[in-house]
């Protein structure tokens, strides 16, 4: 097993997820780090946003993280051997008002990486754009849509369900091109 010092971001994530999973804590990678992964690091995030899918108590997560050598600093967990920060977000695992139905599992040398799909990653970024007008998130959505195969019709359906039909039509060409 690699030491934490030598782990890439996805490897570290898979390591933490697998260690937590052994303790019955199921977490899924979302947010900026999923954009990093799907864009082959064209966008760089130093945060690992792990969604605490089944609302495991914070104390239980805290103990498991301490055992791996992480310590809590504000809302993040830090480790002396890595620059990456780990944050636990409250569940349920959702994109807007809909639950995430499929989680991708990718086997790495350090464990199994559990991550939202490229299509859900685009939806997650678009949610921030739709609701907060965050243009950086729109750029990230476009980056993932260009790098990975995403289901544009599903993104259209979801946008409609979120009441963002007009907004989607304005940006859909950028996702497709």
């Amino acid at each position: 097993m690699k030491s934490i010092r030598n782990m890439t971001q996805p490897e570290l994530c898979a390591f933490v997820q697998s260690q937590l999973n052994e303790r019955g804590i199921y977490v899924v990678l979302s947010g900026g780090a999923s954009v990093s992964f799907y864009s082959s690091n064209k966008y760089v995030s130093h945060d690992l946003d792990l969604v605490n899918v089944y609302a495991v108590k914070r104390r239980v997560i805290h103990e498991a993280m301490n055992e791996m050598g992480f310590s809590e600093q504000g809302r993040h967990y830090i480790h002396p051997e890595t620059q990456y920060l780990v944050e636990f977000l409250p569940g349920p695992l959702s994109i807007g008002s809909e639950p995430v139905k499929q989680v991708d599992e990718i086997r790495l040398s350090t464990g199994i990486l559990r991550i939202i799909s490229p299509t859900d990653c685009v939806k997650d970024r678009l949610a921030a754009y739709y609701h907060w007008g965050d243009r950086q998130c729109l750029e990230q959505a476009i980056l993932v849509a260009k790098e990975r195969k995403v289901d544009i019709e599903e993104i259209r359906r979801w946008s409609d369900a979120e009441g963002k039909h007009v907004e989607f039509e304005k940006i859909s060409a950028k996702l497709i091109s």
Partner: protein
Amino acid sequence: MLQPILGSENIERVLVFIFTRNEGYATEIARFFETDLYGIQNQLDKLETGGVLVSRLVGRTRLYTFNPRYPFLKEIKSLLDKALSFYPAEVREKLLMNRRRPRRRGKPL
């Protein structure tokens, strides 16, 4: 009204206040309900940690709003709307009838 299911009177106060006014900060919520500031701050913090609310700094004030990405937002707003209809008319009025439009600086009252 919703205390048996929310588990705290202050959580209901925070949610109802933000539901009716779209946003709020700890001091004004505590002042409105004539209650302890710490109790309100504590619930705002819990609701933000739980993803129900989001906050941003406006000057030196931390302003809270509903998180538009919270998956149960529509349902919780529907529940708060119904709860509000059971509130005494004067409280409902006071919550809803609040000047939010701008007032030009120096304009006489």
